[in-house]
């Protein structure tokens, strides 16, 4: 399949930065040292276990898997050796039984176990946590039966959504959220390459906004780039000022313990109209910890409150009703 980053220079200008600056070799992967050391070892070595990469979005899981395969196999045999399936492909039980099984079955060259890693085939299953349990169950035998010539790299966000038998067949690697310095470094190098220099302070803003997700940070950076290039200082200041709801959050933080029910109704309206639910609750929580409104005495109750509310919203309940409940309970906790 054609990977976007291999497209010729004619189309280069429309590449999104997330693709343009996707790590191409294992050395480019930021921060995930254990995984990179292991994969590099495997490049030289004789054998490779089945792998399971998991971790939050934008930490380099897919990039690591693709970079590894690209370094392992020369371009001309890449398509014969690597099968990359993701959630945009049909991946029901039928596909596991046919496509994956057929691909794993094919042996390369003469029989017998291959003598080094270059003779293996690799199946990358991206977003495994989106596969049905039945399909995962059907994979169990496939993973074992053909392990002579085929290795699996499974990638997912939540390892808890995989069935235990699949997990136990793989070596697990957790991808950590990227710490601030690593992200700022990476963002700065992109900025320099694109000719849109930014100050450290501004980079920190972008990064804070992305919450440890490098892809999101790069994406944000790209959306800001036309403004930076335009050289309009006031516009620049306006967009880098940080999220607009900081003011609202500190206001809520102060007024909640003494607010009347009517006030809370009004506040809920304002919040639902202007902010984005879950992020508001998270930021509010953070702010309250910073301002010491939440302390050792009430953190247990508060934590539970935030967690339940967030879960309900993520499950698709109505935002306004939940916020109302959240703010009212919050007031009660302080009373």
């Amino acid at each position, binding site marked *: 399949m054609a990977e*976007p980053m291999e497209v010729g220079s004619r189309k280069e200008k429309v590449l*999104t930065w997330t693709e343009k600056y996707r790590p191409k070799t294992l050395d480019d992967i930021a921060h995930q040292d254990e995984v990179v050391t292991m994969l590099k070892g495997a490049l030289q070595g004789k054998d490779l276990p089945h792998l399971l990469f998991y971790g939050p*979005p934008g930490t380099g899981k897919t990039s690591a898997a693709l970079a590894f395969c690209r370094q392992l196999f020369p371009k001309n045999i890449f398509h014969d050796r690597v099968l990359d399936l993701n959630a945009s492909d049909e991946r029901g039980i039928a596909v596991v039984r046919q496509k994956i099984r057929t691909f794993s079955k094919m042996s390369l060259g003469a029989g017998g176990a291959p003598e080094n890693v270059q003779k293996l085939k690799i199946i990358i299953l991206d977003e495994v946590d989106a596969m049905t349990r039945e399909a995962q169950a059907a994979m169990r035998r496939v993973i074992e039966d053909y392990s002579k010539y085929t290795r699996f790299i499974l990638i997912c966000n939540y390892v808890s959504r995989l069935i235990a038998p699949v997990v136990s067949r793989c070596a697990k690697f957790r991808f950590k959220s990227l710490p601030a310095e690593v992200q700022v470094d990476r963002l700065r190098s992109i900025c320099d390459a694109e000719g849109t220099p930014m100050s450290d302070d501004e980079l920190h803003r972008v990064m804070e906004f992305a919450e440890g997700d490098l892809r999101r940070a790069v994406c944000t950076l790209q*959306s800001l780039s036309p403004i930076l290039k335009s050289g309009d200082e006031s516009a620049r200041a306006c967009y880098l000022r940080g999220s607009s709801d900081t003011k609202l959050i500190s206001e809520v933080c102060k007024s909640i313990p003494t607010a009347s029910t009517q006030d809370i*109704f009004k506040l809920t309206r304002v919040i639902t*109209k202007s902010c984005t639910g879950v992020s508001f609750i998270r930021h509010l929580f953070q702010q309250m910890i910073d301002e010491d409104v939440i302390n050792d005495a009430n953190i247990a109750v508060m934590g539970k409150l935030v967690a339940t509310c967030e879960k309900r919203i993520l499950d698709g*309940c109505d935002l306004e009703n939940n916020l109302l409940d959240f703010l009212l309970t919050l007031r009660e906790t302080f009373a």
Partner: protein
Amino acid sequence: MALWVDKYRPKYLVSEKNGIDYHLAQAQHLKFLASDCMPHLLFCGPSGAGKKTRIKCFLRELYGTGVDKTQLIMKPFTTPSNRKLEIQTVSSNYHVEMTPSDMGIYDRVVVQDIVKEMAQMSQIDSGSQKSFKVVVLCEADSLTRDAQHGLRRTMEKYANNCKMILCCESLSRIIEPLQSRCIVINVPAPTDDEVTKVLRNVIKKEEFALPDAVLQRIVEKAEGNLRRAILMAEAIRMENEAGVSSNAQIPVPEWETYLQETSRLILLKQSSDMLLKVRERLYEILSRCIPPAVIFKVISFQINH
């Protein structure tokens, strides 16, 4: 004759005439984004805040007036269980707009087949126009998780052929991996002042004398939903051909009056008789397809006021 909402829909992101009326800084930002390296976008905000209007303006900025020449195309597809279904798409030469969540649980198939197929096709003549097309997915927050997962790699792999614009009401129902692939454009509801300003403009152009008191009442009732405000103004104009007196009432939907009465009953007396009566009323209103979330909202508001 077009409705006022369509007639006075802004056409350009930044312009003196027919430009967007509020969130101007954001409109400027969008104008910057409408270039060769546009990222995927995710518009979110309450209904009637102007998400669709901004998307339309954005596309016009990107491709010119060609995006207005749209046609309705039914795209057929087959589910894994061999059912043949069709989905409605609105498309121009440059963009396609659809609502995959209309297909219920089959939205995953739509994403995997139709969206992916469209993303894979590249523009033939990339010299004279942009080298990518845009797929607009409406109501993205009602897509099932499976369908959203299906979009992930498609958005990355074919990013140079095809950009996505997602449109949703609640950001929380969009999975994080998708959020991280898009620039999130938050479109908050206009403030009451902004609604008033836009309404005044509209009635001025229509040469329609609407007393200030009524205008104020409309703005209050609309609760930041500009579409509703303009529709209400037009409805009042239709009802009062001769001219509007300053104490003209704004029609309240029947279900809202019904809920008001229900909450009055709840407060009146808390007995088992009343409980049965209220339950009956609630069943009645549920059977008229008023969403439970709205019922909760209205009743909790009424009880406290």
